[in-house]
C-alpha cells in the first residue's frame, strides 16, 4: 500500500516480499546513522519511498548501523541508490560488516556499486545470524564527500515450518491442508 508514486520499474520495494521467500525485518531493528542532514535521516531511509533519501553530513566513511533485539538470520541486504539523480552523491564502494556490537564488527562484504539496486548477499549465500549489521559507504562516485541513499531493506528467509521441518509445498492442494486459519 505504501508503494511510492514513481517507482522505477524493477525497483518496487515490496516485490521481493511478494515472492514469499523472504521477509523484511528492518522494523525489528534499531537504525542509526553516523551523520545526517536535518530532514534527510533514518525516516527517509526507511519510508518505502524512493523519492526521499538519506543525506550524510560528515566525514567518510558514512555508516548505517542496524541493531537487532536478538540474533537474527539475515539472508540479504538491499540498497537502493540512484546514480542518475544523485551523481556524485551515489556511493561507489560499500562495505558490510557484521558482529555483536560496535566493537565487534567484521567485514564480510565489500561491493562496488553497480546499477540502481544493489542486492548484497552474505558470503557463501548462506544466511548470516547476527546481532548487528553496519553498512559503510567508503567512497562515492566522482569522489563526492557526502552520500545519498534512498532505501535500505533487510531480508530474512521465510521458514515455512507451519508443521514439520519441510520446505515449502508448491501445489495449492497441499497448501490447502497445511493449516487451519
Amino acid at each position, binding site marked *: 500500500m505504501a508503494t511510492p508514486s514513481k517507482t522505477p520499474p524493477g525497483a518496487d520495494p515490496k516485490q521481493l516480499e511478494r515472492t514469499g521467500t523472504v521477509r523484511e525485518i528492518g522494523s525489528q531493528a534499531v537504525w542509526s546513522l553516523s551523520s545526517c542532514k536535518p530532514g534527510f535521516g533514518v525516516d527517509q531511509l526507511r519510508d518505502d519511498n524512493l523519492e526521499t533519501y538519506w543525506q550524510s553530513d560528515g566525514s567518510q566513511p558514512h555508516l548505517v548501523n542496524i541493531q537487532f533485539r536478538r540474533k537474527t538470520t539475515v539472508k540479504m541486504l538491499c540498497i537502493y541508490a540512484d546514480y542518475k539523480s544523485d551523481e556524485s552523491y551515489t556511493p561507489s564502494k560499500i562495505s558490510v560488516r557484521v558482529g555483536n556490537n560496535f566493537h565487534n564488527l567484521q567485514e564480510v562484504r565489500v561491493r562496488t556499486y553497480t*546499477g540502481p539496486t544493489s542486492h548484497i548477499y552474505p558470503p557463501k549465500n548462506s544466511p548470516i545470524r547476527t546481532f548487528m549489521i553496519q553498512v559503510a559507504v567508503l567512497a562515492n562516485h566522482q569522489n563526492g564527500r557526502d552520500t545519498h541513499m534512498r532505501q535500505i531493506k533487510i531480508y530474512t528467509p521465510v521458514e515455512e515450518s507451519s508443521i514439520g521441518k519441510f*520446505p515449502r509445498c508448491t*501445489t*495449492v492442494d497441499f497448501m490447502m491442508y497445511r493449516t*487451519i486459519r
Partner: protein
Amino acid sequence: MTVLQEPVQAAVWQALNHYAYMDAVFLAERLYAEVGSEEALYLLATCYFRSGKAYKAYRLLKTHTCSTPQCRYLLAKCCVDLSKLAEGEQVLTGGVLNKQKSQDDIITEFGDSASFTLSLLGHIYCKTDRVAKGSECFQKSLNLNPFLWSPFQSLCHLGEKLDPDQVFRLSSLHIPVAPPPPISPAQNPSHRLDTALMETPQDTLELNRLNLESSNGKLTSDSTVSYIDSSLISPDPCSLLANTVSMGSTGSLLGKPNKPKSGRSLLGGPAALSPLTPSFGILALDPSPGDPGYLQNYSGSLDAQQTAPSKKSVSRIGPSKSVFGQSGNGREVLPIPFSQSQGSAPHSSTSPQVLSPTLVAPPNIQPRRSTRLFTSASSTAKENSKKLKMKFPTKIPNRKTKCKAAKTANSNLNESLDILKLDSSMNDSKGLSTPGYQSITLQRAATDMVLYMLRELGRGYQALCCYNCQEAISILSSVPAHHYNTGWVLTHIGRAYFELAEYTQAERVFSEVRRIEAYRVEGMEIYSTTLWHLQKDVALSALSKDLTDMDRLCPQAWCVAGNCFSLQQEHDIAIKFFQRAIQVDPGFAYAYTLLGHEFALTEELDRALACFRNAIRVNNRHYNAWYGLGMIYYKQEKFSLAEIHFKKALSINPQSSVMLCHIGVVQHALKKSDSALETLNRAIGIDPKNPLCKFHRASILFANDKYKAALQELEELKQIVPKESLVYFLIGKVYKKLGQTHLALMNFSWAMDLDPKGANNQIKEAIDKRYLPEDEEPVTEDFLYDSAADVEESSMTDADDSQLHTAESDDVL
C-alpha cells in the same frame, strides 16, 4: 388527557412506521412535554432509539423514573448497546447489590415482553462470563417465545445441545386460553390499549382500519391482537383440535399420522411432494366466489420433498380442516397455483398453506380483514408470517376444482384431494367457522409452518455448531428451494463445507451467496479464508474491494481485506486491516484469530499468542484460536503444550482431519510415533482426500525406518498430487536411505524442477550430503554473489542442475 394523547400517539407511530424519525421525535417531544407520562416517555425514548441515537434514549430514561416494564426493557437495551452491561443487568434484575429477581419474577413482571427481556439478560450474562445463568435465561426465553432465533443461536454457540424439535414448538404457555369465537368484546379494548404501546405502530393503524371497515371490528381486533401477541402465538390448538375432533371424521385423519401432509396438501397441494415444506404464507383469506385471486405457490413443494413431522402435519390438518368451511363448490384453484408457482421465483411467495375459512359473507369479511392485517408491513416476525399469509388470498370453492385439475396433472395429489374432500365434506357437515375461529385456525396453521421451518433450520444450525458438518449440509440442503436459495442457508452450507476442508465446494456455494445476496456480509470472512486457502487472489481482492466499499463498519469487510493482503504476502498491511476489524467490532473473535496468524507469519510469536488468547476470551469455542495457540507452541518447540491445545481444539471440532494431522505430527515430535500413526490413520479415515495426512504418515514411517511402507504411501500420494515437489523430495530421501542413489537423485532433481525457487536449500543440502562414492565431485555450491539482478537464483539452479546431470550421467541408470 388520554383523549389528547391518542391521536398524537397514532401520529408518532405512523411517523415511526414510515421511518420519518425527525417527525416522530418532534411530535413525541411535544407530547412528552405536554403530558409527561410514562407512556409518553417510553414513546419518546423509542423514537430516539429507532432513529439510531441510543445514547439519547439512555440518558432520557436514566434521568426520569421508569417503572413500567417497557421503559425498563428499553433502558436495558440501550445500556447493552452502549456496553454498559452492569447497568443493564441492574435495570432488569435489580442489580448485584440489591436483591436479585429471579427469572420467574421477571417473567411475571414483564409479561408479554418477557421473552425478549430474558434474551437480553442472557446476552448480558454471557458477556459477563456467567454462562450457566445466561443459557438458563435463553432457555426460558425460548420457552416463552419459540419464534426467537437469537437465543437459540446463542445457545448453540455456547455449545449447548438443544433439541430443535422441542424448542420450536408451541407449548401450553403459548396457547392462550383462547375464548372460542365469538370473542368477547370486553376483552378487546383493554387488551388493545395495553398492547398498543408495545406493539409496532401497525397495530393502531390496523385496528383503526379494521374498526372502520367492519361491524365486526372487535372480533378482528381481538384476533389481530391475539395473533400479534408473540407470547400468545396462536389460539389454543387443543381447543381447535377438540373442535375438529368433534367434527367427526377428523378422527380418521388424525389417525393417519404417517400421511405426509403439508398444509399445502390441505389446499390440494401435492401431498407427497413436500409434506411440510414450510409455507407460512398461505392462508386462504378471501373465499368469496368469483374471486380469482388464488395464489398458491407450489414452487417450494414442487422442488423439495421432505418427510414431514407427521404429527405436526396432522395437527395442522386438524384446525385447517375445520377451516375448510366451504361447501363443495368446484375448486378451480389448483392449476393456477401451479402455474404461478412455476412462474414465481422469489422466495417471498412461499409455498402457501392455504386455509380458507370463509363460508358466508360475514366470515368473508373476517378473513379479508385478516388479510389486511397481514398486509401491514411490520418488523415483527409474526407479522412477517402474516405478510406471507396475505399473499395468497384464496377461496375454497376454487380450491376444490383446482385440486381436481391438479390431480390430473400430478398424481401425487390424490392424497391431498382425499383430504380435501374429506375436509369439505366435514366442513359441509359442520357449517362452522365463526370468523374468529377461522382466523385462529389461520394463525395456527401459519405458526405451524413457521415453527417447522425454524425446527429444520435449527437442526441444521445445531449440527453445524457441533461441527457435524455432513449432517448439517444434508439437513440444510433439504429445505425447500425457495428457502435454500437464500443467503442464510447457503452461507451456512458454505461454512459447513469450509469446516470439512472442502474448499472448492465451499467456494462454489459462497459465490452463489454473493450472486443472490450481494449485500450479505455475515459469513464473508469464511468465504475470504476459503479463497485464501485456494489462493484465488483475484476473486479475493474483488471481494475485498466490494465489501469495504459497501460497509466500512463491519468487521467482516476488514477481515476480507486483511486476508487479501495476507495472500499477497504483504503481512504488515494485513495486520493493519485485521486491527481495523477489531477496532470496528471488539467482539468479533475471528478477527483476533486472523491477526494472530499474521503475527505468527511475521514471527512475532508473543503478539500472536496474545491475539489467540483474546479470541478465546471472546469465544471459548473458537477452535481456530485454540489451534493457533497450539501452532505457536509447536513453533517454539513446546510440543506437549502444543498437543494439549490441539487436543482442546479437536474436542470442539472432532471431525477436522487437518487438526488430527497436526496432532499426529506433534505426537511424532514428542516421540510417540505409534500414537502419531494412529492419529494419522484416524485422520485419513475421516477425510481420505487429505494429502498431507498421507505425507506425514509417510514421513513418520520414514523416520521410523519403515522405508517400504513409506515408499508405498508416497507412491499413492504421487498419484493424488503429482505436482508436489515435497513428495519427490521425500521419496528421494527414502531412496537415499535405501541406498538407491540413482533413484534418489532422480527424485531430487524432479523435486527441484517442480520447485526451482522456494526454500530449496534443504533439497540442495540433501543432494549435497549425498555423495557418490568414486567419481564425481560433490556438488559444489557455486552460488553467485551480489549480482545486480535477480537472475542469480535461476542461474544457480542451472549450475546445480548441470552438476546433477554430470553426476547422473556418470552413474549408470
